[in-house]
């Protein structure tokens, strides 16, 4: 009897370890595949040139249009989300709203975060159609903002909520108003977490393709104005992998490697920066 139970224990422990190894090895496999396939295709021309004539048949050119486009789209969306999201994250705190209202809105934001980005893309498309605007950088930025805003607000909300009440009470006792306390004490104390949230949102934004598929369009040129269509890395991968020409597929691999590097740097960067900034606050 005891032996059987011990066997069961060992068996399940083995299953668990194997499961975890499976998950981790998939991650390693993805990273390895993209690096091995992408590294030979990645060169200076790839990063610095825009597509030239015959590019999609395998001739000269690079994906600078997609790199710059993606940075603009994700950067713009992150900036807009920050401008809209920081006040929202403060509005969720109990200084500003009732517990019930905040609870419901948190729930709404969580649900919004779960809404597929293709739905935001479709909604953005509907609005742009209604306004008579064609696919453009502005449309892409606004749609991408919808995608990352809920995540950013909830992430900032969680860190702002962690600011100890005592700290705020000291500020109130010194005569500061609620708003002054929010700015001078709470914002400062929550800053490392806010920075992490913003960087992570950028990472989410730059990888999203479904939302900008309808709204940002695609172009071979570097973005000139926010009303023009704009290229992006995810869509560069998506379009180029679908062609039958090996040279063009190579560029999809290179674009994927670039995107992956950006996402990895963002992920690591947010962690490092968050920890470094956390040294300056009270624990």
């Amino acid at each position, binding site marked *: 009897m005891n032996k059987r139970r011990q066997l069961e224990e060992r068996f399940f422990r083995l299953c668990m370890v194997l499961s975890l190894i499976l998950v981790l090895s998939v991650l390693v496999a993805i990273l390895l595949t993209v690096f091995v396939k992408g590294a030979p295709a990645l060169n200076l021309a790839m990063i610095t040139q825009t597509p030239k004539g015959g590019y999609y048949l395998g001739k000269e050119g690079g994906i600078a249009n997609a790199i710059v486009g993606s940075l603009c789209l994700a950067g713009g969306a992150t900036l807009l989300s920050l401008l809209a999201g920081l006040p929202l994250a403060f509005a969720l705190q109990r200084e500003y709203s009732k517990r019930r209202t905040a609870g419901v809105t948190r729930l709404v934001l969580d649900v919004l975060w779960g809404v597929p980005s293709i739905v935001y893309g479709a909604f953005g498309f509907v609005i742009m159609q209604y306004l008579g605007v064609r696919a453009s950088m502005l449309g892409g930025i606004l749609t991408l903002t919808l995608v990352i805003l809920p995540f950013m607000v909830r992430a900032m909300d969680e860190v702002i909520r962690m600011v100890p009440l005592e700290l705020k009470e000291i500020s109130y006792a010194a005569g500061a108003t609620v708003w002054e306390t929010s700015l001078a004490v709470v914002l400062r104390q929550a800053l490392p977490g806010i920075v992490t949230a913003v960087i992570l949102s950028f990472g989410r934004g730059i990888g999203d393709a479904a939302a900008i598929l309808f709204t940002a369009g695609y172009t071979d040129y570097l973005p000139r104005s926010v009303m023009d269509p704009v290229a992006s890395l995810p869509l560069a*991968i998506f379009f180029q992998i679908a062609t039958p020409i090996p040279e063009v597929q190579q560029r999809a691999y290179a674009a994927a490697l670039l995107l992956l590097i950006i996402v990895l740097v*963002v992920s690591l960067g947010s962690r490092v920066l968050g920890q470094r900034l956390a040294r300056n606050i009270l624990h």
Partner: protein
Amino acid sequence: MGRAWGEMGTRVIHSLRARSRQDRVVAWVLRIALASVNVLTVLIAVGLLLKSMPILRTQSLGKLLLSSTWKPLQSQFGLLPFLSGTIATTVLAMLLAVPVCLLSAVYLAEYARSRVRNWIAPVIDLLAGIPSVVYGLWGVLVIVPAVRVLGKALGYSTTGYSLLAGATILGIMVAPIIISICTEVLRAVPTEARETALALGLTRWEVTRHVVLCSSRRGILAAVVLGFARAAGETMAVLMVVGNVPRVPSSLFAPAYPLPALIANNYGEMMSIPMYDSALMMAAFVLLVVVALFNLAARLALLRFARDEQ
């Protein structure tokens, strides 16, 4: 001297009044901002619903959802192939992912030392952060050929772009969310419950199964539902490997065509065919409603679980 004090006094009062007015204004602005989030949510749903009204006027919802004839040129927009494609890929993905994720989460929550846990959590986050097109690319390079080989070995003629390939990629993509939420849920079970059971002479696995998993089953279910909703809405990666043939999938190795892929694939031509855009927006609306309801249910369950554990 007295006058100077008086002046200073009034200045302080003035600025105090101004400051508290500023405080009230800010509070109102923030309250309005908060309300606008909820308004926006309704607006998204209403916008998509309005766009799908034209087609709902010509055909009943039941017919649209349950007909399997997809011929846009003849104004026949049966969504059944796409609904079944979404359900098939998603359910299969969950069957593949849930056991592995649950076992991983149990290991992380119950067995792993905190050093291992702290080391693995960021790695899982990394997996969650990989863009979906990169998953799709990996699927095209690795999963699709593997499925082709497997299908051939089992006697199916398949290109590899199939239901199984889509489900595998989806399963991998939802793993991080299921693992991290499950780990959190399991760790919320109080240590006393475990210690009591251990003291009764149960092995670690028996404690896990009879005490920990049992008392956290609602939270685990919520994690699975969240993963399910995420998988149902995932677009690009699935689109790249699933084959996209508008037919109810007949086997694991047959191509499928989930709803998000339908929307993403056809935006270019939807303006040239009457009712096409309306049909696609209805697809988006259906997707939104289903995913939002699943998310809502799961979030409520998690909130309730958190309250019960406290």
